[in-house]
């Protein structure tokens, strides 16, 4: 009896030793299979949500054409005119220098009698002829006014401001005509008081003349000094009072290109200088969006034909040019530090920005929808998987039934 009990207990232990690992293994395998199934299904749902949401997120976060106003403080700016323009801003100057001109003409007076009109031309453009006008009254802060500047559509205008002598700044105006343009640049000056004419490599009425001479006054019938540019260019340097603000361009100037840096060649190497000292971009249509300010940076506006220059002003405070631009930013507007070109920032708004900033209601609604939509898609995914599984189970049971019957 004891033997059979021992044998039975040995058998049960042995069986137990065989069964338990098998059952544990089976449980473990089953657990792993289920975890795997859950994992795969979760990833499938996640992929489904991402695929469904991604186009929406992409659409919401893409920058969109944005109406902006840019206020910039610069030392140099160049732009291409969208239309033939007469600049009539009456810029006062203490002295003026002209280069790359075709002809300078004026009608001097001598003891009340008008003399013949004087025509001054450059001898040879290879000699880089120049003509300077300076007042003979040293205490006069300005003796002349750039009364009018005529430029053609497509002309590139470069404005620069640099320190001058004493209480003056040097305002540079360079005009580069479109090669197909028929309109040569023309500047009209008016003056008061006697002035000195200083020329280098010029000739007057086709003859040699003293390089420096004085003019007491100009004819009342023709009191202006007219400077005609060369077919493709004219360069003007005006010595302007440093402590007086003044406008330089007419309001609403249409442009096609805009450059906010300038290059020059120094000792055979190209020097690229960023012109923007500081700036601010405001979003005219979205008053809830805070304006964005930036310091000295490289600024790129892309193609600028959707912009207008509202004003360019000499600012006596900062001794810089202040530019205000308005327009629709269709292309990317970026700023970046000169030494870190890869670290740039885009200033156009996205649809998400515009929806979020439209009103409090739309902001809250937008936030809620951003959460609800993925949850709904996830739930739909789970339901779909469950239904497919149930259908599979039904099919399996049906197959078994049919087998039994057979």
């Amino acid at each position: 009896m004891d033997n059979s009990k021992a044998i039975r207990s040995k058998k049960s232990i042995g069986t137990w030793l065989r069964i338990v690992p098998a059952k544990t293994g089976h449980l473990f395998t089953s657990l792993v299979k289920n975890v795997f199934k859950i994992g795969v299904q979760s990833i499938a749902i996640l992929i489904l949500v991402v695929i469904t949401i991604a186009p929406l997120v992409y659409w919401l976060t893409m920058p969109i054409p944005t109406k902006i106003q840019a206020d910039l403080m610069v030392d140099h700016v160049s732009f291409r005119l969208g239309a033939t323009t007469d600049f009539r801003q009456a810029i006062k100057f203490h002295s003026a220098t002209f280069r790359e001109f075709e002809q300078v003409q004026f009608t001097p007076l001598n003891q009340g009698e008008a003399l013949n009109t004087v025509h001054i031309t450059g001898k040879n453009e290879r000699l880089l002829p120049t003509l300077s006008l300076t007042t003979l009254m040293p205490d006069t802060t300005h003796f002349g006014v750039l009364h009018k500047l005529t430029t053609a559509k497509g002309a590139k205008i470069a404005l620069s401001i640099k320190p001058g002598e004493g209480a003056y700044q040097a305002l540079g105006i360079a005009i580069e005509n479109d090669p197909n343009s028929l309109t040569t640049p023309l500047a009209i000056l008016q003056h008061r008081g006697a002035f000195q004419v200083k020329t280098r490599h010029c000739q007057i009425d086709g003859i040699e003349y003293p390089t420096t001479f004085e003019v007491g006054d100009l004819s009342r019938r023709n009191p202006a000094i007219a400077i005609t540019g060369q077919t493709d260019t004219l360069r003007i340097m005006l010595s302007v009072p440093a402590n007086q603000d003044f406008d330089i361009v007419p309001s609403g100037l249409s442009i096609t290109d805009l450059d906010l840096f300038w290059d020059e060649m120094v000792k055979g190497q190209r020097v690229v200088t960023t012109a923007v000292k500081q700036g601010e971009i405001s979003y005219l249509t979205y008053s809830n969006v805070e304006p964005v300010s930036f310091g000295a940076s490289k600024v790129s506006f892309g193609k600028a034909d959707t912009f207008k220059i509202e004003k360019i002003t000499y600012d006596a405070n900062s001794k810089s040019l202040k530019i205000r631009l308005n327009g629709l930013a269709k292309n990317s507007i970026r700023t970046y530090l000169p030494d870190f070109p890869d670290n740039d920032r885009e200033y156009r708004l996205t649809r998400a920005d515009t929806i979020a900033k439209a009103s409090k209601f739309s902001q809250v609604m937008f936030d809620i929808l951003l959460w609800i939509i993925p949850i709904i898609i996830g739930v739909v995914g789970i339901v779909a998987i469950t239904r497919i599984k149930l259908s599979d189970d039904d099919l399996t049971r049906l197959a078994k039934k049919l087998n039994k019957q057979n």
Partner: protein
Amino acid sequence: MLLFVNHNFIRTVIFVVSLFVMHTPIVYGDELDYQNRGDRWEGIKPQPVSGQDIELLSASVDHSENWKPLPSNCKLKFYLQSAVDIDIEVQELRPKHFYKMDRVIPKTTWQRGFNDFQWLTHDVIAPLNLKMTTLGIVARLAARSDTEHVAPVIFYHATPPTAINGYLFAFKVGGNAKLKYAIYQGKHQTPFIKDNLGRQYVGEPFVVYWDSRKAQAGAYELIVDGYFLNNFKPIHQVVHFYHQPLIKE
């Protein structure tokens, strides 16, 4: 199915990579960039450097030719007193395209007497539509410094002059300055000619012209001096050159 997908995937990857590799030279390589053209380096050269200084942009002989229509070749001729190495540099006086040509390799080494060099315009000059009269040329006998040793260059395309009647020296200052110049013959202490250049503005090139019709052949020295207006830092640029009035082939 898996094999088919992999095969297609691999083919697609290879195709896309090939497109990128082929496309890169078209987008990023530029025929007008500064590069070796065989006998010279020429092109648009963008490299940043700056400084307040005076710079010699051109030392050339006064000779005018009509450059329209643009000829197929540009030619240079200059005189050397002895066979030495020369560094020729051509650039725009007022940069617009940032054109530069230098590191010239002559067909034979430079000789004592008149030397020639020519290059094609179709590589860079024609596509850029450069204004030939605004190019500055310097043939340096030594590296850039406050004292330049140059061989004034005749720049032409058709017929060089038979005699040299004048020279043009173009400079540029790195800040507003007041300048004057004088030309000395040999070791003479009294200038052959002198004049006031007045105020010159930063970045604006200016030309010193010397009418050499009455000058004898020999060594001359052009001195441009003055001071910068913002800090009164003195400026003193010397240019040594040899005046050879008659041109022989």
